[in-house]
């Protein structure tokens, strides 16, 4: 029978520097990717339709991509921004830059003429998209600052608190970095949607759980450092791995069923939670060990 046991890691073999370096490198690379993307495109990540505005229609009964290009070619003024096939179905999501009601009617007519079935249709003005962007960024910052303040109040000492805050920050930046990497290399096109924003906010909550647990065991419990660490890991790794499994399941199932929103959330959470395993048990742990053995003594 398969067993799920949290392995006991022999932390003695690694120095704090050795432990902290890999997560910091990954964070650095992510920040670099975000900067590069920003310099190239003017936005910190590829922004989806929720943030840019335009018109998106979801079509069923489409034979091929070419059929879409034919249908919306001559006679429709609106420029096609992107055509995306819904995995494993004859459904396509087509995005146009227009928001003009006359042009949208022309698109509808063309879709009807080509025999496509319009399953969904959304028009967002660019102004609405930019308000979304501002509010989403502002919301992320407020959430992060609020979380940080709460952590400082809970632990009342600088190093353990900053350890939690830094690893939560890294948990958020790494998924954005991965999305940017995929976009820059042109492998898969994942764009920021409302779903990904929700996922990033949820990461704040999820990732801090295991950090709080680790800090709590090491700082507030009796027992040696490594004993406490192992106990915290047993619980924390179970939590995070369980969440990852749940999110992988949700992502795959929602992709198969072609449900909107859920795959975006799932994907970002899977990457973020995996990053959280690394950040909590390498970066956060090394900071705590330094604080416990050297920082407090000073």
């Amino acid at each position: 029978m398969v067993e799920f046991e949290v392995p006991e890691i022999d932390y003695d073999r690694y120095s704090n520097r050795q432990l902290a370096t890999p997560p910091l490198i990954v964070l650095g690379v992510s920040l670099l990717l975000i900067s590069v993307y920003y310099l190239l495109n003017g936005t910190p990540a590829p922004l989806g339709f929720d943030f840019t505005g335009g018109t998106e229609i979801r079509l069923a009964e489409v034979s091929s991509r070419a059929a879409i290009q034919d249908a919306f070619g001559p006679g429709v003024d609106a420029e096609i921004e992107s055509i995306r096939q819904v995995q494993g179905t004859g459904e396509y999501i087509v995005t146009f830059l227009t928001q003009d009601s006359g042009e949208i009617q022309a698109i509808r007519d063309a879709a009807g003429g080509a025999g496509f079935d319009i399953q969904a249709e959304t028009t967002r003005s660019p102004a609405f998209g930019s308000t979304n962007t501002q509010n989403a960024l502002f919301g992320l910052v407020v959430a992060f600052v609020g979380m940080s303040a709460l952590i400082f109040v809970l632990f009342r000492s600088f190093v353990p608190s900053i350890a939690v805050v830094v690893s939560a920050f890294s948990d958020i930046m790494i998924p954005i970095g991965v999305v940017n990497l995929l976009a820059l290399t042109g492998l898969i096109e994942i764009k920021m949607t409302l779903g990904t924003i929700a996922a990033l906010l949820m990461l704040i909550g999820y990732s801090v759980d295991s950090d709080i647990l680790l800090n709590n065991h090491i700082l507030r419990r009796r027992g040696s450092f490594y004993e406490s660490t192992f106990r915290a890991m047993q619980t924390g790794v179970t939590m995070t791995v369980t969440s990852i499994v749940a999110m992988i399941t949700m992502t795959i199932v929602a992709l198969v069923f072609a449900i909107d929103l859920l795959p975006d959330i799932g994907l970002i959470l899977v990457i973020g939670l995996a990053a959280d395993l690394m950040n909590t048990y390498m970066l956060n742990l090394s900071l705590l060990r330094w604080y416990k053995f050297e920082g407090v003594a000073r």
Partner: protein
Amino acid sequence: MGVIRENWRIAALVVIMLASTFALFGPIGGGAGMQTELVTLSEDENTLTVDESTFFLENTTVELTNESTNEIVATDATIDIDGDVRNVTDTSAVVANGTIDVRGGSVVSPTNTSVITATNESIAVSGEATLRTENSSVDLSVERQQDSGLTNLQYGLDLSGGTRIRAPIVGLHVTDLSIGDQPQLASDLAAALDTDEINVQVRPRDGVVEVYDGAVNKSEFASALQSAGFDVQTSDVQTGVTSQTRDTVVNTLQGRIDQTGLSGGSVATAGDGLVVVEVPNTRPEQVRNIVTDRGIVRIIAEVREPGGNTTNTTVITGDDIAGTSPIGQRQGGAWEAPVRLTDSAAQDFQRQMNDLRFTENPGNCDRARGSGAGSYCLLTMLDGELIKANGLSLGFADSLGQGTWSDRPEFTIGASTSGEAQDIKLSLDVGSLPTTLDLGQGAQYDVSYIEPSYAQSFKPLSVITGLLAWFAVAGMIFLRYKKVQVALPMLFTAIAEVYILLGFAAISGLALDLSHIAGLIAVIGTGVDDLVIMADEILQEGDVATGRVFQSRFRKAFWVIGAAAATTIIAMSPLTVLSVGDLFGFAVITIVGVLVGVLITRPAYGDILRNLVLSEDQR
């Protein structure tokens, strides 16, 4: 009693789960509303059975015959026909100039009458009749008692389909002005801003001036006010309208949607001064028209004098109408919306018709005629567009001339098509919008439409997704603990949280969307995390020898859980205030879920564990 006192947390969980059951399945909550479904009658598949329902035919041609196998069986039904009903071959189903008669039901066409006036040919549906589509397919929207399925849950746009428009209101306003007795102010401002007077509203008592014209910008408005003698800077001009105007817009839109027979539609205000209009089962182009048409009906008396001068006088406005009657068709194919004027408006109209010499020129209306001859036309204007030009009929001119018409001031507003007549009637019934929603370039709006059948397919699929995610969690938990008595209560507790949340959604009338489903799945995730923390803390090595040790471990575990819950709530709370698309629902569900978990389910799980690990006398 002692058992219950000791396990009060479990008892509380059971009570709340029972309450949720009642909320979900019991006869409470807002679930008993009406719901509209779309049915398409096409060439091959045309049977529609209407039972305890209403059906609407809009702008379509229908035939009622007995020869087809396509039948409509109407029992206890309401039938509302808005469109062209033709006389057809099989007269057994047709009563020319008759009434519609539905056994056991009532007829609403257009309101509170048993006469179908959509045409001068009416139909009787008593006994069995059939409904056939002619050369094309017809969409029928059928209103039924809401078939909410098993539960009282309500579903939002993502899961039920329809159109949603979120948009700001066209307008600019200035407050805190001291406006004296300036009756000409509105028309002066309108002239200065080069807009119609109906686009300017002055409320002297509130010190407010509003302009409802998207073409007017802030500095133009400010300088117009400056010329009128007010000390106003461009920075004093605020975008949007006052809350009073916004309320009028919301109420009028709601009335329009209800009157149009688009049942289940709702209008509300959201943050940032946006208005949110949701209409199930309706295409976006139709809703666009509803929110962007002012619905201003005016009758203008146009006099072309033989010399060449043309004068226009507004003789009837929406305010002059005391009531409307069902629309009907005139001889020769034109349509009309019969109305009754208020007494004072009737007196005015009668006087004006005499003053403008309309009564001396009955039937003399020809706008195409050259400037040489005179022409006397009553123009029906809807939102500034000419709908129809009519002359006075001979009999009408007589009674106006004798001054007897105002004793029984009935007037028919002319239109070219039944749709226009219906629009006019609707605008008069509901009232006009002071201003419209802004779907213009640069406005902050979004319009979404989801096909109902497509949206509704998400309901079972998202339930399956959630269940599979829960099974995945269950698998992990069994692998980790290998003890059924630890894992089973854990999984039960996690699902109980979702159940209670659904109960909360049912009782609060929250319309579930995909973002809520995502929130529910997130709650399973955080819930199980916290239960793992509790189980590990309480079941750690070293026996839980006494109740006191248990209490201490329980409290320690709770510190972590409480801290984690507080961070999640803080992380989600910005979304409840900022408007970021549809994420409000996600944030609310997550926050309520965390609260339910911390206050109810997770403490109960602690009690369950205690019963498992402590023997009777150790407690």
